[in-house]
Structure formats: structure tokens, C-alpha cells
């Protein structure tokens, strides 16, 4: 065979394949395309607490309850009502007349199986790891639409947890993850192979109100500029995670708190063991200048590690003032007492953590330099950074600052407080008996008492421990096509209900 | 207006190269008539090929520049023709063949294609061109022309390739055939065949042949008239007998003087019987491999087959053989570059082979054929000559090196200050002198001259041989003198060995071999070079 004939043959194959891939085309006025930076590798329902929730949560698989985005209070969804029948047992009434896309009926058995499946050790369920690592839920079917969920210890937060219990079809493989989850939601995922684009199609049998969107396709593009461009030229209707500089028009490019709060954590070592130094470091930062310079007004200066809608948020706390003079005098004081304030303090940052993260770190270092502190940036790749973040820490632990970001989407402060501020917390750097006491007490309490105790713990920590340099409640931007009507909120970063999307005008 | 077929008048060509301007030819004039053979004789750098290139329109401008002159073909001026008109002429009316056939034929096309192309390029239909090409192949003496039509240049021997080139050149029955050193790269026996073929073809179609060569033998064999060129100028021209018989210009005389084999045999000397090198039953077999990855085929080639010889002290032993005769393998084995399959090499009774015998090997040095290739281009001459002392520590203290290098340079006829220059700043003959100086550095008893003068122009050849003779006289050296050509050996070697196919076919006193060759191969070898005889016919008496 001559080389030319060979080339000809390959050309033919190439052209053929191009034509073949272009064969599908869709023309549905109510179909939308959503462009995201996420790979959505595994969209199994039991991963719905991660960004996978953007696709499946409430769209495909519904949870028992739904958190109100403003108040953070649980509202009925697949559960119609719930009550704490015993300290460790919650009884839940389920919605009747609901069926799955695959025809199976939604009932207590399905819920029980779904919970058991989440705890199946053969599956790497993110929901289990993230929310139920220390809480074993034991379901017990009462009748066809009533179920009891019991826990070992009293669990006042059960209604909030229930908003993460996405209940997939009982026909789902119990021992393997699926790339085609089937739920009771308004949308269904047609049969697909893992790796294909994710397409959601409106389900006519949905028990609730029919959404306006008939079909949603999720595509992935890594470059923010490209996502913005795709919406601009009409190739996509919603572009998620648009860079700040691309979010030029507040009408089409709304921002929303993404649930993440950023801070720098102190290791309580070397000069950082001295509270005056920690305070000085907070006083030396001009947070407003940072926000206006590197981010914008949508970003909120944080006083604590979670959003105001979370139980336990203390609204009375004030951000640190910018007072370099006082910072300097605190440092001088410490220096007189023999603290080595001239030591080089590494700032462990994470590469590609969040937009403008690197620049923020650089700007903060410059501010510390002005009060005479010597902080040095040490960027790390994720896996390397992780080694420093979690206990058990390597000994000796050096004096350092660690760049962190945390999202509490659950609605309750305990996820955050215990982990970071309790002496036994996996990411805690210190042990303060009073703070331990407050957190333990709050954990055991419920209702207003619980909220109050967490608020006290937060205030105490900020005043008497100063474990971190609080930064911002972070914002995401999305670009929305002008044919759509949609307003993102605090929870949009992990859950985007397609049923909330409306079309403008008649078409 | 003269009636010559091809006439070059007052041609001057200049080249811009290597950092300087070279006037390649100055005011060159010559002419060629139908049916005659004109030889342009000249050594390297004489500009002998330039006017031919100008005829063919092959001088690229730049780097070339034609300063003046005219070329007329068939009464028409052809210098500076348009590319299209030049193409009409090239191949159809004037054809050309070249020296290095492997390079001059396109390696990726079949030879048949390349012959046909000289016809299709001039409008002959492909089918007819093919038929004619096969006829031509047969005519120039390629067996099985039908089959070989589809073969590639590398599948032919050098002589066959030159025949194919000739076939392609005569395809359009041109009026003029320019042959640029057509036989220089070939073995003597093959050379004779090619010249014979050219003469036959000329007789058949009456074309004029322009033969460009450095080889007086070829001139004597084929030319009717001779143009002698030196340093870009024509120094003498005239009928063959006149130029060779009564050279008017001093350069021509020197050239004739330098031709080897004209001075009788070396005087029979009292040869010592003290054997320096003894070779006993030396054989070297190579397994034959084939394919891209050289897979062994199980066949064997006997590069050396049971060779025995002795080199005595003070003796010059000539070894003559054409390509494939095994002389190269013999040298490589002697130098320890190749391990023999069997047999032994003794130096004063001790084995020379094997790694432990470096000290013995010191006494045997070598001068290679190509002085350009055998000197490291990035080392200064002084370092090249001193390298043997750097390798054999203790022979000469470092402080002595410059003095000794200067001495050696003077011994080989160069100047001490040349030590500071690089090889490329010297001419070919000077480089060979440097190589000889390096060989002398360790005061060896034997020097192996591996075709040491073959690449040099005749006049230089004679000088280098004279140097070797002087060194033998002064230092009592012995030479193993390897050559592919008999005449060089004739007036230098005391004894001569003729090799063919890895075996010694004849050996004896040089005069004996030349006067009474016994082996048919030796006879053929001598017959292929009738030059000396023929020249003697032309040359009356060497002028004083």
C-alpha cells in the first residue's frame, strides 16, 4: 500500500467520524445548556453533598427535607412531617403517591434501602464521609409511608440531615455506584454511558409542579473566559463560576455567596504561640482594601467561619479594625517579653485554591511587612498542603499560617466548630478548656440554647484565642443568558434547582 | 564566427566562498569539434570543471558570478540562456556525466526511471522512453536490462552506475558529451572498460567528448587534443602528441615528470633478512547479515583468507589490490582495529595483537589515505603531532614537546610555526605531511601507508613519496605500502604483493612482477593501465 493511499484512507476515516459526531442536534426552545468547570465524574445520589448536587440534588433525586435558602430552616419535600418520638428516634411521614422515573413506588422501604446503601462499606459515598462519619443512622420501616430513623446519641439536627438524604430508586445497584441515578425529581437522566455528557430531561410523571425547563445539558469547560464567552454567544444559557473580571454586568452576571469562608489558620508555635502576635497580625490587615482591591463589594468580611444563615452565627461580632499602630505596639510588647517576632513565618498557600488567592496572600504579606513581620509565601500543591492541614500533625510543628477555605452548607454550626476549635478537632491547633466546654455544651443542647452557646463559643474564640485571620465569605459569579430568569442564592453552589429557572417573554 | 561545435572564449568566473573571493577561471578559451575528444587536464583547484558547468548552466549566481566571456554552441551564444532554453539544450544536445555516481544518481528513484527521464524531459512518451532505456542499458553493457531497469543506484557497482549514467546521457544522442572525471573513483580494470565504452559510443554517433580529468593516463588513453589548466588558467593546449611529447609550459613538464612509474624500478638493494613483521595464515571472516536490523544469514564473506607475508627491516613492501581485495582488512587487523578469525601477526617474533601489546604496537605507525579525515579538525597541528606523547607517557617529557614538534615539522618539510594552525588551513599534501610527522613522533620502525598517496594529485604524490624515501634513508624505516594502483608501487616498493578476493595471488621483487606477471589477475591489472606504455609513445624524452 502506498503512503498516499494510506493517508487517503485515514482522511476518509477522519471525515467520517467528524460527520458522525455532528449527527445529533437538538432544537427545543425550552432546552438549556449549563456550562460548568466540574467534571461530574460520579453523579451517584450518595455524592449529592458535593458539587454533584448541582446536577442531581432536587432535580433528579429529591431529599426528605429542603432547607430554606434564606432562613436555613428545613421544609417538607419527600417527607411531609417529622417528630422526635424518642431522644434517639425520629419518626418521619413520607409523601404519598410519588413514583420513581423507573416506575417503582416511593415508600418507606425505598428510604430504608437508600440509607442502608449510603452506609454500604463497598461504596465510596461522599455523603457518608462528609456528614455521617460519626453518626450511624438506623432506619426502621413503620408502615408503607412512615419510617423511624434512630441514632446512638440524641440527634437534634435530624431535620437538617434529612435535607441531604437524597432517596434514589430501590432498583439502584446496592453494591455499585451508578452513573444514571434514578429519583423522584422533576428530571430524569436518560440511559447514558459514564463519560457521556450529562443530560437531564423533564419527567412528565413528576408529583409536583412541572418546571419550565424541558431539558438541561451540562458541559464542562475549564477556562472561565470560555464559559463566559459561551453564554455571551448563545452556546450556553448558564455559565457557572465566572471569574470576577468577567462578571462585568450585574444584570446578567449575578454573584452569590458560595458558602465558602476563607481564613488563615495559625499554628500555635514559635512567635505565633503568643496571642499578642496573633492579634497584631489581625490588626495589620486592611480587609476592606483587600476586598475592594482584589475582589469586590459582593464579598463579605467574615467574623466567623460560616454564613449568617447557619445556626450559631453570632451577628454581634465585629470585624477586626485596621490599626497598624496598635499592631506595632503589640509586637513591640511581645518582643520585650522575648518573643522572636523577627522570625520568618511561612504562609502555606494552596496552588489554584480560589480566584485571586495568590494575590491576596501577597497583599497580606505586604501589609504584615509594614508592621515589621516577616511572612514568606510557600505555595503547595493540594496533596502536599493536605498533609499539613489534618491531624495527626508531623512533629515538630513549625510556626506557620495555613490558607484555608471552608463551607458549611448544613445549617448547623457544629460541623465547623468541633472540627476547628475543639481541642479534639481534627484541624484544631490548640486546646482551650473554656472553648471546649462551650462547644460540648452546645453540641448537647438544642433549639435557642444551642444557638446561644455556639454564638458564645464564637465570640470567646475570637476574643480570647484568636486562632485565625478571618477573611471573607466568598462569592461565585454566574453568567445567565438574557432569555432566562433565575436568581442564584447561598446554596446554588451545591444545588441548582432547574425548576427555579423561568423563561423570559413568550418563547 | 568559427565553425566549432562548442566554443568557450575568454570565460572568467568568480565564486564567493569560505570568506574569500575565488577567481575560479580566468580568460579560459577552448573549443570542441564533432567526433573529437578534448581533454581538460588539471589538478584539484585548477578550475578544470568550471567552464563545463558554465556550458550546462549549472553555475548558481550567487555564489558564482560570470565576469566575462562567451560560450557558443553550434554557432549560437548560450551563456545566460533562460532556464527554459537551457533545459532544451541540456540532455538533448549537450549531456554530462559525473564522477561520484552514487551521489549523482538520485538514491530514491530507479535507474530505469532516471534514464527514461532524460527522454521524457524532452517530450518523448514514457512508453517509448522505457523501451529505449532498456535498449540503452543493454548497449552500455548491463546484463539483464529488463530486470535491472527497476533497480536502485545502491544495487549497482560503481562501474555499472557509471555505465548507467552514460546510458542516460546518450539517450537523446547529444552532440556533446561532457565527462567530468568519469573514472576517477573506479578500480583500474573497471576504468579501462568505461573508457572503451566511451570510445565505441563516440564512433557510433560521432559526438564530441569533453573529458575533464586529473589523470594523465586517461588523457593519453582517450584524448585527441589536450587543454592543461592550472590555478584557473589555461597554461597550454594542443594535440595530444604535442602536449605530452613536447610540453612547452613548465607546469606541464612538472606534471609529466611526476607521473609515477616512469623512473624505472628501485635499485635492487641489499635487503636485510631481519624480519620485523611476520603475518602467518591471517584470516578474517564476516557473517553476512541482511535487512533493516542486520539479521545474520549464516553466509560468510572471507575478507582475508590465509594471508602470510613478511616485512624485513629497511624494506618497502607494496601491497596492491582493487576494492574488495582484502587490503583494508589486512591493515585494520595489523592495527588491532579488527580481530582476526585466525592466524597471527608477529612483531620481532612477539604477537602484536591483543590489548597488552600497546608498547609493541608503538613501533608500528600508520598514515591513512585521506589526510583531511585523519586529522581532528578541532585540534591544532602541534597538539596533533604531540598526541602520541600524551598517550604514551614517559616517552618524552612535556617540556620537550614544542621543540620536538618543530623538529618533526621540519623533517616533513613544514615550518615550526605551523604548529599553531588548524588542519583546514593546509593543503591536502601538507596535511599528509602532518600525518606523517605524527606517525614519526614515536620513532617507529615500521610505517604502514594505507593508500597514503592515493587521494593526492600526481605532483603532490611524487613529493610525498620522495619524503617517504628520504625518511627511510635517514631513519631506516620500513614501509608496508598499500595501494590500489600498480604504478605508484613501481618505483618505490622493493617487493610487491598482489591481492585479490582476500588472498595473495602473486608476490615477488617489484621488477619481476611488472616485467613478468604470472598470475592472470596481475596481467589484467597491468593491461588496464597501458598509460605508461602509451605515454612513452607520446613522450620522447623527459625534458631536463
Amino acid at each position: 500500500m502506498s503512503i498516499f493511499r494510506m493517508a487517503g484512507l485515514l482522511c476518509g476515516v477522519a471525515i467520517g467520524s467528524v460527520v458522525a459526531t455532528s449527527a445529533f442536534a437538538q432544537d427545543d426552545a425550552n432546552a438549556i445548556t449549563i456550562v460548568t468547570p466540574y467534571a461530574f465524574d460520579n453523579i451517584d445520589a450518595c455524592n449529592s453533598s458535593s458539587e454533584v448536587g448541582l446536577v442531581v440534588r432536587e432535580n433528579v433525586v429529591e431529599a426528605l427535607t429542603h432547607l430554606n435558602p434564606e432562613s436555613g430552616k428545613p421544609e417538607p419535600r419527600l417527607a411531609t412531617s417529622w417528630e422526635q418520638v424518642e431522644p434517639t428516634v425520629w419518626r418521619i411521614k413520607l409523601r404519598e403517591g410519588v413514583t420513581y422515573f423507573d416506575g417503582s413506588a416511593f415508600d418507606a422501604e425505598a428510604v430504608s434501602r437508600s440509607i442502608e446503601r449510603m452506609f454500604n462499606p463497598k461504596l465510596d459515598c461522599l455523603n457518608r464521609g462528609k456528614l455521617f462519619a460519626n453518626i450511624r443512622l438506623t432506619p426502621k420501616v413503620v408502615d408503607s409511608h412512615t419510617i423511624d430513623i434512630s441514632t446512638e446519641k440524641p440527634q437534634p439536627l435530624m431535620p437538617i440531615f434529612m435535607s441531604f438524604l437524597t432517596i434514589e430508586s430501590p432498583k439502584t445497584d446496592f453494591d455499585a455506584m451508578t452513573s444514571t441515578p434514578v429519583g423522584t425529581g422533576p428530571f430524569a437522566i436518560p440511559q447514558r454511558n459514564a463519560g457521556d455528557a450529562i443530560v437531564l430531561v423533564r419527567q412528565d410523571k413528576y408529583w409536583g409542579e412541572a418546571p419550565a425547563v424541558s431539558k438541561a445539558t451540562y458541559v464542562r469547560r475549564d477556562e472561565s473566559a470560555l464559559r463566559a464567552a459561551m453564554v455571551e454567544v448563545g452556546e450556553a444559557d448558564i455559565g457557572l463560576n465566572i471569574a470576577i473580571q468577567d462578571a462585568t454586568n450585574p444584570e446578567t452576571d449575578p454573584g452569590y455567596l458560595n458558602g465558602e469562608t476563607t481564613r488563615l489558620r495559625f499554628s500555635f508555635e514559635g512567635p505565633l504561640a503568643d496571642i499578642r502576635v496573633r492579634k497584631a497580625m489581625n490588626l495589620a490587615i486592611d480587609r476592606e482594601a483587600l476586598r475592594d482591591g482584589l475582589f469586590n463589594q459582593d464579598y463579605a468580611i467574615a467574623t466567623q467561619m460560616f454564613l449568617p444563615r447557619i445556626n450559631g452565627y453570632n451577628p454581634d461580632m465585629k470585624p477586626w479594625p485596621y490599626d497598624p499602630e496598635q499592631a506595632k505596639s503589640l509586637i513591640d510588647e511581645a518582643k520585650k517579653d522575648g518573643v522572636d517576632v523577627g522570625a520568618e513565618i511561612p504562609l502555606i498557600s494552596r496552588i489554584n485554591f480560589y480566584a485571586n488567592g495568590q494575590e491576596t496572600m501577597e497583599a497580606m504579606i505586604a501589609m504584615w511587612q509594614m508592621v515589621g513581620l516577616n511572612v514568606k509565601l510557600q505555595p503547595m500543591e493540594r496533596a502536599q498542603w493536605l498533609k499539613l492541614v489534618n491531624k495527626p500533625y508531623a512533629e515538630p510543628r513549625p510556626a506557620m499560617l495555613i490558607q484555608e477555605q471552608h463551607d458549611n452548607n448544613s445549617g448547623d454550626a457544629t460541623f465547623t466548630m468541633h472540627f476547628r476549635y475543639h481541642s479534639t478537632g481534627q484541624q484544631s491547633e490548640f486546646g482551650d478548656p473554656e472553648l471546649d466546654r462551650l462547644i460540648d455544651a452546645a453540641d448537647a443542647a438544642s433549639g435557642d440554647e444551642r444557638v446561644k452557646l455556639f454564638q458564645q463559643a464564637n465570640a470567646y474564640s475570637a476574643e480570647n484565642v484568636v486562632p485565625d485571620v478571618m477573611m471573607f465569605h466568598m462569592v461565585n459569579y454566574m453568567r445567565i443568558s438574557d432569555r432566562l430568569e433565575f436568581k442564584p442564592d447561598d446554596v446554588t453552589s451545591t444545588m441548582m434547582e432547574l425548576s427555579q429557572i423561568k423563561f423570559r417573554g413568550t418563547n | 564566427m568559427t565553425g566549432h561545435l562548442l566554443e568557450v572564449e575568454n570565460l572568467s568566473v568568480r565564486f564567493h566562498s569560505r570568506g574569500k573571493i575565488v577567481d575560479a577561471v580566468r580568460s579560459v578559451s577552448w573549443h570542441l569539434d564533432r567526433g573529437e575528444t578534448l581533454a581538460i587536464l588539471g589538478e584539484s583547484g585548477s578550475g578544470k570543471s568550471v567552464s563545463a558547468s558554465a556550458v550546462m548552466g549549472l553555475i548558481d549566481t550567487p555564489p558564482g558570478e560570470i565576469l566575462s566571456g562567451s560560450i557558443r554552441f553550434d554557432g549560437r551564444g548560450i551563456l545566460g540562456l533562460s532556464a527554459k532554453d537551457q533545459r532544451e539544450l541540456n540532455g538533448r544536445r549537450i549531456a554530462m556525466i559525473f564522477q561520484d555516481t552514487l551521489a549523482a544518481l538520485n538514491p530514491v528513484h530507479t535507474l530505469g526511471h532516471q534514464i527514461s527521464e532524460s527522454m521524457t524531459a524532452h517530450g518523448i512518451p514514457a512508453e517509448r522512453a522505457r523501451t529505449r532505456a532498456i535498449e540503452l542499458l543493454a548497449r552500455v553493457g548491463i546484463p539483464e536490462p529488463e530486470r535491472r531497469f527497476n533497480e536502485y543506484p545502491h544495487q549497482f557497482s560503481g562501474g555499472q552506475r557509471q555505465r548507467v549514467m552514460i546510458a542516460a546521457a546518450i539517450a537523446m544522442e547529444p552532440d556533446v558529451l561532457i565527462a567530468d572525471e568519469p573514472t576517477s573513483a573506479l578500480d583500474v580494470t573497471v576504468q579501462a572498460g568505461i573508457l572503451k565504452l566511451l570510445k565505441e559510443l563516440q564512433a557510433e554517433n560521432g559526438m564530441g567528448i569533453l573529458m575533464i580529468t586529473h589523470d594523465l593516463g586517461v588523457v593519453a588513453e582517450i584524448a585527441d587534443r589536450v587543454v592543461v589548466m592550472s590555478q584557473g588558467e589555461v597554461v597550454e593546449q594542443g594535440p595530444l602528441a604535442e602536449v605530452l611529447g613536447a610540453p612547452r609550459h613548465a607546469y606541464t613538464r612538472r606534471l609529466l615528470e611526476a607521473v609515477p612509474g616512469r623512473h624505472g624500478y628501485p635499485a635492487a638493494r641489499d635487503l636485510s633478512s631481519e624480519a620485523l613483521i611476520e603475518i602467518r595464515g591471517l584470516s578474517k571472516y564476516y557473517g553476512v547479515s541482511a535487512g533493516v536490523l542486520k539479521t545474520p544469514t549464516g553466509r560468510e564473506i572471507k575478507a582475508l583468507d590465509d594471508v602470510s607475508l613478511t616485512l624485513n627491516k629497511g624494506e618497502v613492501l607494496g601491497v596492491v589490490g582493487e576494492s574488495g581485495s582484502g587490503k583494508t582488512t589486512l591493515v585494520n587487523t595489523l592495527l588491532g582495529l579488527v580481530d582476526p578469525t585466525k592466524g597471527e601477526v608477529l612483531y620481532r617474533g612477539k604477537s602484536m595483537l591483543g590489548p597488552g601489546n600497546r608498547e609493541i604496537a608503538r613501533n608500528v605507525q600508520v598514515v591513512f589515505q585521506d589526510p583531511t579525515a585523519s586529522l581532528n579538525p578541532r585540534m591544532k597541528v602541534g597538539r596533533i603531532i604531540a598526541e602520541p606523547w600524551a598517550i604514551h607517557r614517559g616517552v618524552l617529557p612535556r617540556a620537550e614537546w614544542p621543540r620536538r614538534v618543530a623538529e618533526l615539522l621540519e623533517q616533513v618539510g613544514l615550518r615550526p610555526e605551523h604548529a599553531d594552525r588548524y588542519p583546514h588551513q593546509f593543503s591536502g599534501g601538507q596535511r599528509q605531511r602532518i600525518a606523517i610527522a605524527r606517525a614519526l613522533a614515536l620513532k617507529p620502525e615500521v610505517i604502514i601507508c594505507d593508500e597514503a598517496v592515493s587521494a593526492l594529485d600526481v605532483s603532490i604524490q611524487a613529493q610525498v613519496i620522495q619524503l617517504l624515501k628520504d625518511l627511510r634513508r635517514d631513519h631506516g624505516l620500513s614501509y608496508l605500502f598499500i595501494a590500489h594502483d600498480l604504478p605508484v608501487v613501481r618505483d618505490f616498493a622493493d617487493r610487491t604483493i598482489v591481492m585479490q578476493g582476500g588472498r595473495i595471488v602473486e608476490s615477488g621483487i617489484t621488477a619481476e612482477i611488472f616485467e613478468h606477471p604470472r598470475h592472470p589477475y596481475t596481467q589484467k591489472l597491468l593491461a588496464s593501465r597501458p598509460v605508461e606504455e602509451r605515454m612513452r609513445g607520446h613522450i620522447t624524452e623527459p625534458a631536463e
Partner: protein
Amino acid sequence: MRSYFRQRTMQSAISLFGLVVLVFFLARLTGNPTDLLLPVDTPLAVREEFAARHGFDQPMLVQFGRYLLDLLQFDFGESLRDGRPALQMVLQAFPTTLLLSFWAMLISLVIAIVTGSIAAWRPGGVFDRIASLISLAGASIPNFWIAIVGVLVFSVWLRALPTSGTGTPWHWIMPVTVLFVRPCGVLTQVVRSSMIDALASPYVKTARARGVRSRVVIFGHALRNAMLPVVTVAGDQAAGMVNGAVIAETVFGFPGIGKLMIDSIMFRDFAVIQAAVMVTAVAIFVLNILIDLAYALLDPRVRHG
């Protein structure tokens, strides 16, 4: 020919095994996927459980032994991210990259051969100067930059091409462009210099002495000889395509092997990394054989040597 393939395969098998060993151990130096796959706040117990489930708690040699055993049964393991067989994922992504590279190489070669040959005809001439400068510029611009500027200019401003994604032939234009610009620049330079050599060679002189037309001299005689070094360089460029494809695939959302590889690397999805590296290596092995064949096609000396 058979022994050629046997030897070639042996060599490649050795390299491939070395590659497997190297990738297996070096990849594991870069950290534990447990940390990366699970959220930062995951409790220690959950991490340990996860590591145990996937065998990451075992000694490295045990893990490697298991991997080799599976490999012998042609089991490349499963992706940590979505549980699919690694080989399937790789084979699914591979054709896209192959096609992308094929077009990029084809266009590069065609442009390079035409431009390089014309430039070589009169070295130092106007065309040569301009072609050299453009090809150099092409070879000197970061390709992700070309990609993003391309989107802004052709999709956003001119609205002439789709921004990204697959589908119609239009979608292929920009990724292929991004991918071919550099090899094209490099190849043009190679074609040019090797054509200059070829045009100065004695056989071209012979052809001219025979009265052969310039076009035939360039394309019939010089080019085919000049192609030999071009084939070598083109082979190297083609082998490096996977690296270049990472950029094009990342920016344009092409589901190719480059993108798969970088994603897997970022997530320490070892099975997929290993499978992708192996498939790529095998492809390069096949490519090398194709280059040898092309050599043999172009040069009879190689065929008969």
C-alpha cells in the same frame, strides 16, 4: 520483516515494562488519593476506611504485585473517580486525541512541505525571509494563548466559529489550529533546511544537466530525499502531540486523552494514569513502526539494506 517486528516488539515491551514500574511508583510518590478524593474535612476514620477499601494501606510492593497480576489478565483497574474500568475510559478518550493529532499533523505537513520547499528554492529571498519569520513566530507563541485569543476573536467578536466542544467540523477548526501551529513552524524549518541540502546535491545537478524541469527537480528529485529528516522530526512532533493536546483539550473541552491524563494526574487516579500512559506508549510504538515503514517507502536503501 518478521524478525524486525519481533525485535521492535521486544524493545518496546522492555520499555513499556520500565514505564509501568516507573509510573506506578513515581505516581504514588505524589500523595495519597484518599486525601484528594475525599473532602478536606473528612474524618480520619473515614479516610482510613477508604484507603483500606482500595488497598492503599498495603505495602507498595504488594500493591504493585497485585497490579501486575491484574495486568496479566488485561485488567487495568478501575477509576477511583467514577469506578469505570480505566482501560475503557482511556480507549474512549483516545480516538478524539488521535483524530485531533492526525489533522494537526496532516495540515502541518502539507503547509510545511509547500512553504519550506518554496523557501528553499531561493534561500535568503523575500519569500524565504517572510516564511521563516512566520514559521518562527508560529513556533514561538504559547499555544494556550493562541487558543484563548482565538475564541475571543473568532467566536466572540466575529461569531464565525463555535467557542468549544465537539459536534460539527467547525468545532475542530480552532483546536486543530492550536495544535498544528507549533509543529508546522518547526517542520517548515526542517523542510527548508533539508530541501536546501537536497537542492545542492549532485543528483539535482545531474537532473538539471539532463534538462529536467524545475518543478520536477524540486518535487520529483529533491523533495523525496529531503523528506527523510522531515519524517523523523514529524514523528517526534507527533509523539509529543499528547502534551500539546492537553492544552487544546483543556481549553476547548475536547474529551481526549490529554485532558483525561491531566485530570487523573490532578486526582491521583492511578489506574487511569497508568492505563493512559500505557496506551499512549503503545501508540508511540506503533507510530515509530509507521515511521520506519515510511522510511522504507521513501528510501529504497532502507528497504534493501
